[in-house]
């Protein structure tokens, strides 16, 4: 039955994948990709089909699991953000050579801008590197349609397909028509059923380098066949040709119609920017490529674009930027650009357990300690001086290990702290910790455990006991991992218990002076951004004693709770009651003791 629904690009992708028959879907959360998998879970709960839809511990594991599901004849897909694909590059490249059995789609969300990522990398180039065909939707509706198309092409050509989206597609919303038909397809995983022909199968499932050459050849043949069929769609009729793919196509259509350039520009839209077949386009006066965020079509067709300075080499190709390019081409008069005032920098939520825990850490270890941070909400601790490095998932512990080791070699006493969230630790923090233990590197490991993947929208972690379907799960205990590795100082505190936290941190500091092992403090407090976390959070309302507040702003700069603000007229700090959740943590911060708990 056809239905008109108001969906985000990510929701639309989930509908497309599940309607297209995906019954094994996994991934690791990462903005802007995180909503695809939860939407698919909702569909599974609603339509009760068989299969597996849940998070993996990291992107590499996710891609491997999904690919092996495809080898069992089950249509599968995996979701991640662009930097997550970096983590999964090894299996990604391999998957192209080996080739899937049932459809296999890798959904990757890029973040031109970037809005919430470390890089602006273009995953279409990763697809090119891996020799994986890539579909690049221009609208939410196409995100839905291309998810299905990717599954079809994957099955027809026995090749993995990448569905590349960007923030504006993934977090864009639109009313689209979906069929919402979820046929109860036969769910019949099979592997090694036919032993007679198994040796032939093994030539690709466990191929040696010699056979890899043949697999590579076969992959190239598939790409050639796909490229042969892959034709751009043309719009308008002008003597300037613009090649494009993805959301930029939508901006260009709007601009061409707004400025009535239908006779000046021809648009060539590539639904699939790789693989393409070279053609000359010699009938046009100029050929230009506008694409996000790196040259791909531009290189293939050797057009104007980023390489001749027409298109900015970094940043989002917003409608404003495209408009500027039009005026550079002499198509429209130049417009004055509007200066955008900077917004207030982001802070941790009011009441966040990370804030008070890291404040205590700063108090005990001082600002001279080296704080190696990681990817998560707590990156924001750099605002109040408890994070010196932010690099990539898990790097806090590799950094801490190497930096501490260097100072030890030099016999110089420096205190080094690695700060990592629970989910990030499980994602990629364990391997560097193994090296730290093995090489006897005594740094302090702080695990900020809020029992959720906070920054990306509170997805579940391996610590959970029950699945979204209500099935029991084995909860993974981080302290057991640490003890199992051989750490003998592993303490768990609730950072809301400030005194206890200070005490444990002091003990850790003393321990590190005499130890040759890393030591660990797990700061465990539920995320207050979840409904449950907020409802169960302790209530310790405070008041600010006006006569004691000297307006020194220590709390604002060193603790940075959004619920505390400086009132210019009274020159005192005040509490914004619409933001305050009564956590009471700020009472431990004020050097003048002007913030006091209101006893009931």
């Amino acid at each position, binding site marked *: 039955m056809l239905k008109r629904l108001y969906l985000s690009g990510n929701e639309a992708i989930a509908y497309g994948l599940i309607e297209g028959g995906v019954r094994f879907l996994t991934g690791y959360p990462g903005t802007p990709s995180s909503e695809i998998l939860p939407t698919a879970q909702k569909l599974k709960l609603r339509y009760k089909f068989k299969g597996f839809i849940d998070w993996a511990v990291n992107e590499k594991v996710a891609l491997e699991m999904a690919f092996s599901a495809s080898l069992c004849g089950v249509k599968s897909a995996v979701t991640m953000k662009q930097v997550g694909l970096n983590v999964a590059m090894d299996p990604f490249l391999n998957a192209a050579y080996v080739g899937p059995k049932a459809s296999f789609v890798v959904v990757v969300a890029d973040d031109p801008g970037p809005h919430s990522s470390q890089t602006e990398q273009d995953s279409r180039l990763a697809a090119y590197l891996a020799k994986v065909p890539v579909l690049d939707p221009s609208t939410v509706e196409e995100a839905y349609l291309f998810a299905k198309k990717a599954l079809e092409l994957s099955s027809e050509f026995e090749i993995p397909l990448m569905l590349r989206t960007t923030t504006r597609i993934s977090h864009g919303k*639109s009313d689209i028509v979906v069929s919402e038909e979820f046929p109860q397809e036969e769910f019949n995983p099979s592997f090694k059923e036919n032993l007679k022909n198994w040796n032939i199968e093994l030539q690709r499932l466990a191929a040696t380098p010699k056979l890899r050459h043949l697999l590579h050849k076969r992959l190239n043949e598939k790409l050639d066949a796909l490229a042969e069929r892959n034709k751009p769609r043309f719009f308008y009729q002008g003597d300037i040709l613009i090649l494009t793919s993805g959301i930029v196509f*939508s901006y260009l259509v709007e601009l061409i119609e707004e400025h009535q350039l239908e006779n000046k520009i021809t648009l060539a839209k590539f639904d699939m920017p790789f693989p393409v077949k070279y053609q000359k386009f010699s009938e046009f006066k100029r050929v230009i490529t506008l694409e996000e965020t790196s040259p791909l079509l531009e290189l293939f067709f050797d057009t104007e674009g980023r390489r001749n300075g027409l298109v900015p080499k970094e940043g989002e190709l917003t409608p404003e930027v495209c408009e500027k390019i039009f005026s550079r081409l002499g198509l429209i008069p130049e417009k004055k650009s509007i200066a955008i*005032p900077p917004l207030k920098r982001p802070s941790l939520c009011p009441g966040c357990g990370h804030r008070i825990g890291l404040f205590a850490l700063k108090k005990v270890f001082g600002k001279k300690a080296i704080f190696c941070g990681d990817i998560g909400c707590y990156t924001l601790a750099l605002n109040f001086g408890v994070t010196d490095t932010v690099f990539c998932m898990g790097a806090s512990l590799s950094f801490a290990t190497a930096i501490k080791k260097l100072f030890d070699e030099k016999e110089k006493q420096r205190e080094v702290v690695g700060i990592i969230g629970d989910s990030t630790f499980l994602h990629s923090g364990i391997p560097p910790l193994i090296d730290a233990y093995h090489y006897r590197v005594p740094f302090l490991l702080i695990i900020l455990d809020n029992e959720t993947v906070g920054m990306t929208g509170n997805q579940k972690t391996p610590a959970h006991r029950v699945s979204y379907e209500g099935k029991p799960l084995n909860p993974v205990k981080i302290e057991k991992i640490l003890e199992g590795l051989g750490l003998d100082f592993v303490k768990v505190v609730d950072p809301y218990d400030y005194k206890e936290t200070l005490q444990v941190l002091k003990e850790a500091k003393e321990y590190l002076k005499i130890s040759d092992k890393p030591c660990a403090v797990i700061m465990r407090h539920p995320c207050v951004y979840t409904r449950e976390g907020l409802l169960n959070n302790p209530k310790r309302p405070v008041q600010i004693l006006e006569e004691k507040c000297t307006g020194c702003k220590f709390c604002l700069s060193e603790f940075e709770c959004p619920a505390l603000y400086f009132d210019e007229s009274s020159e005192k700090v005040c509490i914004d009651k619409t933001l305050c959740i009564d956590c009471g943590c700020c009472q431990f911060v004020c050097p003048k003791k002007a913030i006091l708990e209101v006893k009931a």
Partner: protein
Amino acid sequence: MKLVILGKGGQGVLFFSKILAQMALNEGRSVKATEIKGMAKKGGVVEVQMKIDEGLSPLIKRGEADLVILLSPDLEEYGKTFGQKILKFTEEEIKKAFEKVPQRLVNTYLLGVLLARHKIFDKKTALKVLDEENKKSFLKGYEDAEKNVQSQDGDFT
């Protein structure tokens, strides 16, 4: 129609936008929107751009929004980069909202104020989209603002 809705995380910007979109859809119009949430959640800036019955993409060029709705007054300078027509709620209106309805319904009260002051949608459309308690809160806002609109000259600042 090009709308920009700006506010802070926790203020229900997304809920507010969803209701506006739902009203347009109920009238048989098409909606394209985009949501940008920064790294911070509660208290962080949330920006929604929404095009109703126009365009292929959800993005609105700076300076071209028909109406910028501010849920947080300190975002005015930023909001003005999207368009000159700004709708912000007065301190009095916000105070009244908190007095008249429970905190979780403040948004729909303000939605009532918005539609009374600027008829981007018909009141009836709103009533069809909202559930019972939100409907009541909406009507309170609508009626309170209607009284004011008559006495005020010009509804935009």
